[in-house]
């Protein structure tokens, strides 16, 4: 097949498109830092997960050490069962504790993991028991109002000002 001068331009066009794809994949989506190695899974039960979602980060000392794999509801204990996938390179003691935290005032929720003192490390399939639920704003307000009502319980101050 004979070469035509369109060959060059179409080739350049296709290469430009491929270059755009590579640029987007590397610079926008950070393909190189994708984690293909699988970690080990542990489960934990929370009374209330608040707004935690799958794929949320698991951080220790602020460093991302894993991801939330899945969240299901256990209708035996009426708790949320959260499966975490922790990076293989990080090991945590068996009695580590989990907390659901919020990044910033309105930010996304993530799980903070604090190392315990046990000599044995977590292995795949372990279940963490020391967990602290998410802070739910409505419950906080409810507690606040309740304690306020207890403080000034006797007369209502509505008419006393007059």
């Amino acid at each position, binding site marked *: 097949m004979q070469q035509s001068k369109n060959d060059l331009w179409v080739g350049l066009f296709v290469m*430009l498109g491929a270059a755009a794809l590579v640029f987007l994949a590397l610079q926008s*989506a950070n393909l190189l830092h994708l984690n293909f190695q699988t970690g080990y899974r542990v489960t934990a039960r929370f009374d209330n997960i608040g707004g935690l979602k799958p794929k949320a980060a698991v951080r220790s000392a602020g460093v991302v050490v894993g991801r939330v794999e899945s969240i299901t509801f256990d209708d035996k204990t009426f708790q949320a069962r959260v499966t975490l996938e922790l990076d293989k390179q990080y090991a945590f003691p068996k009695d580590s504790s989990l907390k659901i935290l919020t990044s910033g005032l309105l930010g996304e929720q993530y799980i903070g993991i604090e190392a315990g003192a046990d000599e044995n490390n977590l292995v795949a399939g372990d279940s963490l028991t020391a967990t602290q639920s998410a802070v739910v704003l409505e419950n906080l307000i409810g507690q606040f109002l309740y304690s306020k009502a207890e403080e000034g319980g006797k007369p209502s101050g509505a008419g006393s000002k007059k």
Partner: protein
Amino acid sequence: MSWWRPSDVGLAVRSQLADAGQAARLFWQLIRQVPAAVQRPGLVRDQVHFLGNYSLAIIAVSGLFVGFVMALQGYYTLQDFGSTEALGQLVALSLLRELGPVITALLFAGRAGTSLTAEIGLMRAGEQLSAMEMMAVDPVRRILVPRFWAGVIAMPLLSLVFNAVGVVGGWIVAVPMIGLDGGAFWSQMQGGVDVFSDLGNSVIKSLVFGFTVTFVALLQGYTAKPTPEGVSRATTRTVVMASLAVLALDFLLTAMMFSI
């Protein structure tokens, strides 16, 4: 009110059905003739050159300005919440998920779709298609199939160029002009954009839009009335129908891809 007669309603329904049937048959012919396009890649190459290379300038310039505007508007809104470092993520996600494929498809319909319709409509009007049939050359195979596959190839590439240029445009406004931190701009973008669910779906969307726009343009040209007025109407209908189809399909695709 003569058009209320039942026979007129019947005629309208029947002609709609006939149009739909013709469209479906043409679509099936285009899909079935992939081997014809592979046998003569030169034809496809020339059409990619015509549809793709010549659309590159308008796509790149539009992408640049859309990126500029996204960054400016996003900056003013995000400033109120004190989270201007999320600007990179905002620009990249809006471009990849929606604006890139959709605006590219609309521009592609206006730039390349109309020229396809007018070209084929004029071939029909000048009886070139009939002449080819007389010479036992299938006009669908020789004329329509290379153009169809060229459009399907060119559209995702153009959409990728639009996205990349738009991201760079957003960076130009955010970092050198407004003076945001470049590291935060890129790292927030990289944290929020997923290769498969965002970039992959962007490519899938643009591929579907390429199919749609090229097919609408070819169908309108092929079924145009062989008169100057018929060709001009067909060209207008290409833009209207392709744009509506792209926007409606975009809603469907978005609902399917990003619902959960």
